[in-house]
């Protein structure tokens, strides 16, 4: 089956192409099912092809499809190793569930087919990214997912806010891509090739510390753009303008994890640069606590989840920055489960509340939407890190690994712990505000449970959120063994092995989670006046959090405005006056020359005759003179 790995990319790609041309002739739900079948097929292929790795002992395989740019060692080649397999399974598995959910969510939309075209295209692009065998192909997938993100965020393009958000996402990503590209150029300069095999095998000989640090930091810039870390995270909250399945798939489970994947994949390079690793981890930790604090005070249900994603991505960066690659990828997987679940659940709520997203206008939905409420509770507890749900195992492994690393990482561990507490608080707040207590919704809202096509994926994801963590517990490090072939030659930071330290660390994490959840529930199960006063008591801090520290405003004033002034100057002064002036000036020059030469054309043959003969005379003189 490994020979057919290209099917994993080809199936969703074929789906996208087919729906692009023929989607409008296919009746509504059928196009959605087709798209889901395409990505479901990709999941099956990945699963079958991953079996050798699960059994253990299989070697990573590189499959070359065709030559692309031999001069820089870039060809269409796929690398199928445990890490790629894991990523492919997560993308296709969660992706299929989200596709199915979207059939219900996007029902009635007039561009239903286009939505699934773009979703399938996204899946194909993301799979290109994770299955790439060299940096060039990875970058190709990287850019394509950026494009699909733009298309899907701006899916309802008639809304100016949506169009602006799509542009913002693309542009901020581009800034990250700039650093990424320079990093790739450095890789090429040092190694003369971009293929993973070529680079990683020779990393030890060719790489100096300085160069490794430079590459590591530049790749971080790209990863920070794609994975929404400080300072390039500002696009993700705005990206919530897109339909909720898009938020679930792209901005929670898959695309944003690309940055983490790249750093994990480049582990052999980071091996040689402790400096870059510390920077990665610090950026992650800082982003985690920054975003968690913002999430505390948001009113929009999707914004809470958006900032939560940024925060959890910070955790993943914290992991890979401490060389705990397995822990980071593990958290990537579990996060995909419960964050997709939370987003889809939010989608279910929004859909039934006729697109209401303000949590202050929800409440008591538990009675109207019991299944959604239950599954979201599972997701919330998983996110908070309550054992034995998935989130606990992965988050705890990250924190333990950081603690074990020591030095500066102690400090980061503390930040992580505090963030875990905040995480538990805000997600409890979310659940209580939405589902508990007395209804606060408007008269015209008629909340109802969502149809089965939407609730079944929720149940599936809830199941995964419960059992997903058991693949890598300290009692049985299944995932770690699974991923071993991908990290050959790389030192992986592991959690402490002695049960005492491990136990104390786990207890601290559990304590943080429980305290957070408890505080959240207690604060918000009271009537609205009480918790409003509770929020006000934190002013002015609460207001700052609600405004996301005013970062967007800051960027607007320091970067966007000068940029716009520069563009205006260039357009209206330089272009209009200098360039147009030169071009028009040439025109005027030509016309002037024409006016000056026109009198020669008198229309009289005899005048022309004089010119003829004069010319003939010149020729004769010349001929005679030259012998």
């Amino acid at each position, binding site marked *: 089956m490994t020979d057919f790995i290209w099917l994993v990319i080809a199936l969703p790609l074929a789906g996208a192409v087919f729906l692009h041309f023929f989607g409008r002739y296919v009746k509504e739900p059928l196009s959605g099912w087709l798209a889901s079948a395409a990505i479901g097929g990709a999941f099956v292929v990945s699963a079958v092809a991953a079996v050798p790795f699960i059994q253990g002992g299989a070697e990573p395989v590189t499959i070359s499809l065709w030559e692309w740019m031999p001069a820089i060692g870039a060809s269409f080649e796929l690398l199928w190793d445990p890490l790629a397999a894991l990523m492919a399974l997560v993308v296709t598995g969660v992706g299929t569930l989200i596709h199915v959910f979207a059939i219900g969510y996007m029902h009635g939309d007039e561009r239903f087919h286009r939505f699934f075209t773009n979703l399938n295209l996204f899946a194909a692009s993301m799979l290109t990214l994770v299955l790439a065998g060299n940096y060039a192909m990875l970058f190709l997938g990287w850019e394509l997912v950026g494009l699909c993100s733009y298309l899907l965020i701006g899916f309802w393009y008639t809304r100016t806010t949506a169009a602006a958000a799509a542009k913002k996402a693309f542009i901020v990503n581009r800034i990250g891509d700039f650093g990424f590209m320079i990093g790739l150029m450095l890789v090429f300069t040092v190694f003369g090739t971009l293929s993973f095999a070529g680079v990683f095998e020779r990393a030890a000989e060719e790489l100096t510390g300085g160069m490794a640090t430079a590459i590591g930091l530049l790749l971080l810039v790209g990863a920070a753009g794609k994975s929404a870390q400080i300072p390039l995270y500002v696009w993700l909250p705005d990206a919530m303008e897109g339909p909720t399945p898009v938020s679930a798939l792209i901005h929670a489970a898959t695309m944003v994890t690309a940055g983490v994947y790249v750093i994990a994949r480049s582990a052999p390079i980071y091996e040689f640069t402790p400096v870059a690793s510390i920077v990665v981890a610090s950026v992650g930790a800082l982003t985690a606590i920054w975003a968690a604090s913002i999430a505390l005070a948001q009113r929009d249900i999707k914004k809470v989840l958006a900032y939560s994603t940024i925060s959890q991505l910070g955790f993943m960066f914290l992991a890979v920055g401490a060389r705990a690659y397995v822990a980071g990828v593990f958290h990537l997987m579990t996060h995909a489960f419960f964050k997709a679940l939370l987003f889809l659940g939010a989608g279910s709520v929004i859909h039934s509340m006729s697109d209401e997203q303000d949590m202050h206008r929800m409440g008591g939905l538990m009675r109207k939407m019991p299944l959604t409420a239950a599954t979201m509770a599972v997701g919330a507890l998983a996110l908070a890190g309550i054992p034995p749900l998935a989130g606990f195992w992965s988050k705890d492994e990250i924190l333990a690994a950081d603690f074990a690393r020591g030095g500066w990482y102690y400090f980061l561990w503390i930040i992580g712990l505090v963030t875990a507490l905040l995480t538990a608080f805000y997600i409890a707040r979310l659940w209580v505000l939405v589902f508990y207590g007395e209804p606060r919704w408007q008269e015209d809202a008629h909340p109802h449970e969502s149809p089965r096509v939407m609730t079944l994926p929720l149940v599936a994801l809830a199941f995964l959120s419960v059992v997903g963590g058991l693949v890598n517990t300290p009692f049985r490090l299944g995932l770690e063994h699974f991923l071993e072939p991908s990290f050959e030659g790389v030192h992986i930071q592991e959690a402490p092995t002695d049960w005492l330290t491990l136990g104390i660390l786990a207890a601290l994490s559990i304590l943080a989670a429980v305290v957070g959840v408890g505080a959240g529930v207690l604060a918000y199960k009271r009537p609205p006046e009480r918790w409003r006063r509770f929020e006000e008591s934190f002013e002015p801090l609460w207001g700052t959090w609600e405004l996301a520290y005013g970062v967007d405003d800051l960027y607007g004033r320091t970067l966007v405005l000068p940029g716009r002034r520069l563009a205006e100057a260039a357009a209206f002064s330089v272009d209009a006056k200098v360039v147009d002036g030169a071009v028009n000036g040439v025109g005027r020059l030509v016309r002037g020359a024409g006016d000056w030469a026109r009198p020669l054309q008198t229309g009289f043959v005899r*005048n022309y005759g*004089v010119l003829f*003969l004069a010319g003939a*005379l010149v020729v*004769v003189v010349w001929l*005679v003179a030259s012998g």
Partner: protein
Amino acid sequence: MGKRMVETVIFVVAAVAALAGAVTVVLARNPIYSAVGLLGTLFSVATLSVVQLAPLVAAVQVIVYAGAVMTLFLFVIMLIGVDKEETRVEPLPRQRMWVGILAGAVILFAAGAALSGEFVWVPAAATAIDQDATNGTIQAVAEPLFTDWVLAFEATALLLTIAAAGAVVLAQFKRKRA
């Protein structure tokens, strides 16, 4: 007195006649006079051709040029009734000035060429004239005409046909007049 002397005398007479005819063409006010002047020049050139042992060319010149072409000219002059005189006033500004400059330049050039001493009229001239080789009898001229230059010969035949047809088309009367 001998052959040389004869040739020189004939040359001088014919040259004077030719130049006189040419000047008449240019200066005569009545176009009929110009035509007659041209006729004189043509005969003179024919004479000079005969002296240079090109009898066929001279004969053809007299028959075709002086005979047919000039007759045609005279017919047209009569037909379109321009035997009136032309005024001497030059309507185009500065035309005479430019022509004068041009003529002056040519004469200067010619004088300069002649005086430079290096000027040769025919650079590829042979040292002695072979009378037989340059004797332009009918047989002698016909030979290269029908062997080396037969293609051009046929082409000129075609040319004449086309010219005749073209002239008919150009000058025909338009029958449909309301």
